[in-house]
């Protein structure tokens, strides 16, 4: 198929200020008998931040993203999207939909026509579309605009979706598992491009990913969802301060563990590193440092695993 729409050659207008979002008691059911995909979810996404949206498979991340982008309506509860002070229901609201971009895994693209046709359609609808950025990103990801997405590898197709998301310059841009199939160099090229463009054109980014170790450095806020419920939604620094990691001589480290909940433990010869859950007071921190231990924050991934662990069923899955 062949698109007839052509991208505007004039400079795109300046995007409005970054969009935020609020969900209040949101429930989404896909069928009358189904479990809720979102079950009373309440959270706020701050405008102008990069928010990590974390959850296990089936936790409700994709459903949440679909609500923000007005792909569907909630069964109950309220969803509001917009600039600070102008939050509105995004569903069938052209002001919202034109300023929110959701890139789903493998993207919403025409698989059986040239990649350029898809880009032309996005360019025709997106008021802040940056065709030059799209071209640069396709070049960086080694994607020919003449190639059909159905003929691309999964990684290239994901990279194509990532390029669309960045080039849209939408005040709220959501990437839902967009990295799938991308090799490591492509993923890091995407992260770098995202950060560079975010710095140059501030907006709100929501990034859903399972590769938490890789992307947590980008997060300013973190939302963790499990079984349709929001477990936490707070700045990444607060998340990291929910625990502490101690590194040093094993015997010394064990002295500070002292009945605390251990999230992770590693040992190499006489050196140990433990990740502890729970607040670590200023005095304790000073004591640990004074004793020669290295005190660090908790990796988001360790905390995420701890919060979403299901002892019985996880063993079943592992089997």
């Amino acid at each position, binding site marked *: 198929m062949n698109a*007839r729409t052509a991208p505007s050659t004039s400079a795109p207008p300046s995007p409005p200020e970054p969009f935020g979002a609020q969900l209040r008691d949101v429930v989404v059911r896909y069928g009358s008998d189904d479990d809720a995909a979102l079950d009373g979810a309440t959270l*706020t996404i*701050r405008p102008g931040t990069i928010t990590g949206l974390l959850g296990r498979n089936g936790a409700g991340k994709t459903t949440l993203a679909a609500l923000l982008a007005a792909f569907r309506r909630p069964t109950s509860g309220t969803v509001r999207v917009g600039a600070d002070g*102008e939050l509105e229901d995004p569903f069938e609201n*052209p002001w919202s939909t034109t300023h929110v971009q959701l*890139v789903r895994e493998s993207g*919403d693209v*025409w698989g059986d026509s040239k990649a350029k046709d898809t880009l032309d*359609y996005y360019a025709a609808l997106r008021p802040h579309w940056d065709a030059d950025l799209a071209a640069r990103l396709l070049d960086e990801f080694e994607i020919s605009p003449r190639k059909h997405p159905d003929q691309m590898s999964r990684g290239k197709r994901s990279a194509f979706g990532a390029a669309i998301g960045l080039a849209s310059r939408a005040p709220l841009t959501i990437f839902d598992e967009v990295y799938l199939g991308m090799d490591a160099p492509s993923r890091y090229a995407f992260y770098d491009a995202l950060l560079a463009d975010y710095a140059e054109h501030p907006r709100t980014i929501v990034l859903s990913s399972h590769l938490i170790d890789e992307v947590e450095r980008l997060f300013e806020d973190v939302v963790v969802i499990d079984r349709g419920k929001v477990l936490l939604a707070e700045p990444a620094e607060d998340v990291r301060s929910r625990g502490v990691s101690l590194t040093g001589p094993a015997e010394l480290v064990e002295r500070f563990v002292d009945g605390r909940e251990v999230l992770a433990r590693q040992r190499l010869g006489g050196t140990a590193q433990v990740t502890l859950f729970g607040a670590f007071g200023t005095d304790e921190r000073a004591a640990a440092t004074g004793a020669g231990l290295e005190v660090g924050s908790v990796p988001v991934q360790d905390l995420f695993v701890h919060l979403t662990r299901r002892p019985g069923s996880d063993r079943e899955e592992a089997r």
Partner: protein
Amino acid sequence: MSTETHPRPSAERAAERAALAAAAHRRGVRAATEYAVGVTWYVGIWFWAIAIVVGATILVVMQRNGDVDVDAVNSVMDSARFFLFVLGIVVPLSMVALHVAAGGTRRSFTHGLWLSGVVVGVSYGLAVAAVGWFQWWLFTRNGWSATSAQHQLYADGSEVGLVLLVQSLLCATYFLAGVVIALGYYRAGFWGGTALVPVAVVPAALAEISLQSGWFGRALADWVGLAGAPVWAATLGGLAAFTLAALLVRAVLRNLALRPVEFAASVARG
């Protein structure tokens, strides 16, 4: 990480936003129309090429056998609406998710499809009328009978205006009827979509009865006692059929929840 709702925007800001939202709507309508019409004609070129070759071949064979019948050639040209019915099923299915993902609304998509129905209907109607007129000219010039036994509203291709009117309404209605079937399945799944099929074909049947054209339109018009209705009544019936199809398109798109990517990909692949 908590902010609460803030005061409503000023009147000036609200007006500015309304203007931007209206511009976004226009962009959505235009993009959907341009793509749907573009694809329909991109594929339609092949339909017309094949239809003309088949029509010419039939004509040559009949001429060699010494028995030239205008209805045999008309049948090929008259099938444009069925071709558009199929494209009405295929084209919007490949567009709906991408349109919303690109920031369009269901409303702008609906309006784009309505406009596409009009443009596609009139342009295909023009093509049918042009081919019909050429056929009439050829038949008249060679002394063959140029009058079709199938049509009631127009006797032959010389009635260009009437052919254009009838074929435009039929093509536009069939295109939108195809859209209703496709989006019915997208919206309601297999069983719900199948249940919607009889509803979706009502506008097409109404157009056939009103316009009394084609193979089964005349029979249906006879059956319901509408055969011989004047042109103005037939036109009103055709317009009512198109309007009904347009309303059904709006109904199936209203509040439509987008399916997961895998579903969209599977329907796009057919």
